[in-house]
């Protein structure tokens, strides 16, 4: 059994689908943070069989939980302070996400005007459908 030490302040993102932690790492832009990050892949899980875990030692206001909710709102977010779990944050689908995913519709204005932000809005919360603000094309998610 691999042991990864406790963190003092930050997040433990648990119950990430096995193999998806690196995608989360990218989306959360953890490469831009100057902090300790532990990526645990394929950890044993009673609930999931296998799962990934991310431990991030950072100020607890530094992570964009909207992005996390968009990618997988079934992830458990444990907030750590003084080495203890102080809160389990519920993730709710954000009403809008900006510059996280790109519109792939070749007919969309964002395909030719590079400076435009890529904004998606939550069109159907039940089916978790996001649509491009400009062309309304549905985001077809292969990454999730």
């Amino acid at each position, binding site marked *: 059994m691999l042991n990864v030490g406790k963190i003092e302040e930050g997040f433990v993102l648990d119950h990430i689908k096995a193999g998806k932690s690196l995608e989360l790492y990218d989306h959360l832009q953890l490469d831009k943070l100057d902090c300790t990050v532990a990526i645990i892949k394929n950890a044993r899980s009673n609930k999931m069989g296998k799962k990934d875990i991310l431990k991030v030692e950072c100020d607890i206001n530094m992570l964009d939980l909207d992005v996390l909710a968009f990618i997988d709102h079934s992830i458990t977010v444990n907030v750590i302070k003084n080495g203890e779990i102080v809160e389990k944050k519920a993730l709710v689908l954000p009403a809008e996400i900006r510059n996280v995913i790109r519109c792939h519709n070749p007919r*969309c204005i964002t395909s030719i005007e590079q400076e435009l932000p890529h904004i998606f809005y939550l069109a159907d919360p039940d089916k978790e459908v996001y649509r491009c*603000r400009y062309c309304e094309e549905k985001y077809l998610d292969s990454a999730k």
Partner: protein
Amino acid sequence: MKHLMSPLDFTTQELDRLFDLANDIETDPNKYAHICEGKILATCFYEPSTRTRLSFESAMIRLGGRVIGFSDAASSSAAKGESVSDTIRVISCYADICAMRHPKEGAPMVAAEKSQIPVINAGDGGHQHPTQTLTDLLTIRSLKGRLGDFTIGLCGDLKFGRTVHSLINALVRYDNIRFLFISPEELRVPDYITDMLRSKGISYSEVIRLEDVMPQLDLLYMTRVQKERFFNEEDYVRLKDFYILDTAKLALAREDMLVLHPLPRVNEISVEVDSDPRAAYFRQAQYGVYVRMALILTLLGLA
């Protein structure tokens, strides 16, 4: 500041006010002939669309205003690589209101976000063409006397037809409308529309032959079936006549049925139908000017 990006940007109450104004313009155009004096409409057309552009220009001129603009991207600063955002900032200095057509979907919305003047989406690729839908609604309301309580047949290319999708989305906000979709298998209305109708409990049927449903219709909305939409020549040849409205098919229709078409018509309505009092498509083009006049007045705050 209000813009028009989609027909659903207006509530049904706002649409009623807009259509009342359009009907008043129709009744007494002289009352409105000078109301936009000193105002300028910019028609920014990044792709050619003579009919829509001239309809907008006619609307503004009939209100006493003036028009500037361009009619294709090659004669605009887009050819030099200027962004829509920059163009609209500049146009905002030159005009009081802008009608924009662009081949890329969402371009008018980008313009609206940066604009200091109201922007009207005059068609953005296969996405929205709201003033066509407003034209269709005004025509139905004016000639039928109501928006609701009717059976409408939509015939032709229901898969790719932007005007059809937009009209359906606008009509579902009214009560007791039954939809009959008349198309070849290959060009059926998309699932997301039939899903939406089912979820709202709205009645619809899909048929292949126009003759089968003609006697049931209060309105027939025709669209063109293009040869290139078919997978093979054989199917096209077999089916194309199903979707051509001629006097023989029209003879099956009610006396008070109306035939609508967004135009341009190619061959899907025989010219022999034009003289039938039920042929409403040229009157529809006239309503297109009235609704654009009402829209310009509303967005400029002059209504």
